[in-house]
């Protein structure tokens, strides 16, 4: 077994025992990146010097017997949506090319304080808007399981880097499925925490009422360990929840015996690929075998989630992205005559087609005469979607469902048809609208060797239970040991 094949916790154990140093682990990642990333293209920027300096400092702490955290010295990567002081951050957009943030996002600070070397910035759909990584202004990332296919999006670079063993773990963000869908597409674990659980301060905003950062890892236990570092109340984010952080690893091995797991019938609609459905159904039977009770449940407003999301998210995006105007940072159209033209030319040149589409849609939905019919109505339907979850969680402990109706699709297959791309998110959007936590855990492969993920949804702030349910399945099927064919 190669060093880079270890899980985060396995590496942490070796670091604690002095069997390997953080510098060795970090160098192993850097060599791996050099070898495989030309095929995967997960990285927008590798910070070799920064990562090695952090690794040396970590080794010194370990030697002195004063590790900063259990994961001190474990190298990870960051989606290029997290501000990193002194290291270029682009959100996958031309409009932020060359932007060097003056500060760290709170979660980046937390990782640094916990001693994790940061290997660099990972590719994403521009401003996290997309489901395939193809809307990145720089290049698309390839799926390590089949390089002609997408790793999903928008945290596709993070997922691909974890699956390709370039990093031990990574941070992603999830606004409508952007952690869970790429995790499902790459045989990795992805957790979208409860809205408010993890600070959004310094995370470039897409849709502020939906965005949530979270861990992307190879195993459930790694996700729990990483969430342990990230889940802190942050006074700098007014939507950060002042909620105590539980021990996410404590109950991990307690199994599912006696738990009631809801199977939402709306999540098994027509149009799901047969092999994906078969894999998910097999996982449900497994839970039954392990002692859980499956309950048929209904979330009747699920069919409205897509329309609701594609009004609310673009509306919030159109407001958030107003700041990219060529005045304070990023691109500026230098040939503009006057201030108005400076704005409109900068934005025309800086944004890609998907971002323009969403800005236009959001601006329209918020404009005079349409606000009530579109935006306000969508917010009301959001209430109905949220109440579906509240009602169903009175009867069951968690929900089990598919992540995506399809297996990873070919790069280029859907780029010209935005609506069919939006349909890929149909099973992941309701979770964000309701603000509840959602997790993706590997549950099998198609005959062609493409990964399939299982979605577990729970009550607000019940991440520990989701991790425990996911772990019960992972213990029976350690798909994470399989190596992508690269």
């Amino acid at each position, binding site marked *: 077994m190669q060093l880079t094949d270890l899980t985060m916790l396995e590496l942490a154990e070796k670091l604690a025992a002095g069997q390997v140093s953080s510098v060795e682990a970090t160098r192993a990642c850097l060599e791996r990146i050099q070898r495989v990333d030309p095929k995967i293209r997960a990285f927008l920027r590798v910070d070799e010097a920064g990562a090695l300096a952090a690794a040396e400092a970590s080794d010194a702490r370990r030697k002195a017997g004063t590790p900063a955290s259990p994961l001190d010295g474990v190298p990870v990567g960051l989606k290029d949506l997290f501000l990193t002081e002194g290291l270029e951050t682009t959100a996958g957009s031309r409009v932020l090319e060359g932007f*060097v943030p003056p500060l760290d996002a709170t979660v980046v600070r937390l990782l640094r304080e916990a001693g994790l070397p940061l290997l660099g910035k990972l590719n994403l759909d521009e401003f996290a808007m997309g489901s395939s990584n193809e809307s990145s202004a720089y290049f698309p990332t390839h799926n390590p399981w089949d390089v002609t296919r997408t790793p999903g999006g928008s945290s596709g670079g993070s997922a691909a880097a974890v699956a390709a063993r370039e990093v031990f773990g990574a941070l992603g963000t999830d606004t409508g499925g952007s952690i869970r869908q790429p995790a499902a597409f790459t045989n990795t674990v992805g957790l979208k925490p409860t*809205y*408010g659980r993890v600070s959004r301060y310094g995370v470039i905003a897409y849709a502020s009422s939906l965005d949530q950062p979270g861990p992307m890892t190879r195993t459930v236990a790694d996700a729990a360990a990483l969430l342990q570092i990230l889940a802190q109340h942050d006074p700098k984010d007014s939507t950060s929840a002042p909620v105590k952080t539980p021990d996410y690893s404590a109950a991990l091995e307690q199994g599912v015996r006696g738990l009631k797991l809801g199977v939402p019938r709306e999540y098994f609609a027509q149009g799901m690929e047969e092999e994906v459905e078969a894999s998910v159904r097999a996982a449900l039977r497994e839970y039954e075998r392990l002692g859980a009770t499956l309950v048929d449940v209904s979330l009747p407003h699920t069919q409205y989630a897509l329309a609701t999301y*594609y009004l609310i998210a673009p509306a919030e995006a159109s407001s958030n992205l107003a700041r990219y105007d060529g*005045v304070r940072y990023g691109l500026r159209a*230098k040939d503009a005559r006057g201030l108005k*033209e400076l704005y409109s030319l900068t934005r025309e040149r800086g944004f890609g087609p998907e971002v323009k589409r969403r800005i236009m849609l959001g601006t329209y939905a918020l404009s005079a005469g349409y606000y009530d019919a579109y935006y306000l*109505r969508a917010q*009301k339907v959001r209430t109905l979607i949220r109440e579906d979850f509240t009602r169903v969680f009175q009867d069951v402990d968690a929900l089990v469902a598919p992540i995506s109706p399809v297996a990873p699709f070919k790069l280029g297959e859907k780029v010209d048809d935005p609506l069919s791309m939006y349909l890929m998110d149909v099973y992941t959007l309701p979770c964000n609208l309701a603000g509840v936590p959602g997790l993706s855990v590997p549950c099998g492969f198609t005959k062609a060797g493409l990964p399939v993920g299982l979605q577990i949804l729970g009550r607000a702030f019940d991440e520990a239970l989701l991790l425990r349910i996911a772990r019960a399945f992972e213990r029976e099927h350690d798909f994470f040991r399989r190596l992508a064919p690269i």
Partner: protein
Amino acid sequence: MALTLEQVRHVATLARLALTPEEEQRLSTQLSAVLDAVTQLQSLDVENVEPTSHATLTASLLREDVTRPSLPPEKSLANAPAKSGTSFAVPKIIE
């Protein structure tokens, strides 16, 4: 619901986007398709439903109103495309 070219141009002005004629054409088609898909919401009765702006939040959390250190001007200006002293410089505002 179809979005006319004229409407696309109006929204583009509101959004401060200098679209090309090809983009206007393409967005008119694509946005019309998306708006068609979202008309589905019009069929729901939401008369007595309160809107949700934040899913898990009942009220905004406010910090103590005390002064804290903020970014020094040179750091704030470090990424400025053009600056003048401690200000961001822009083209003439009054035309």
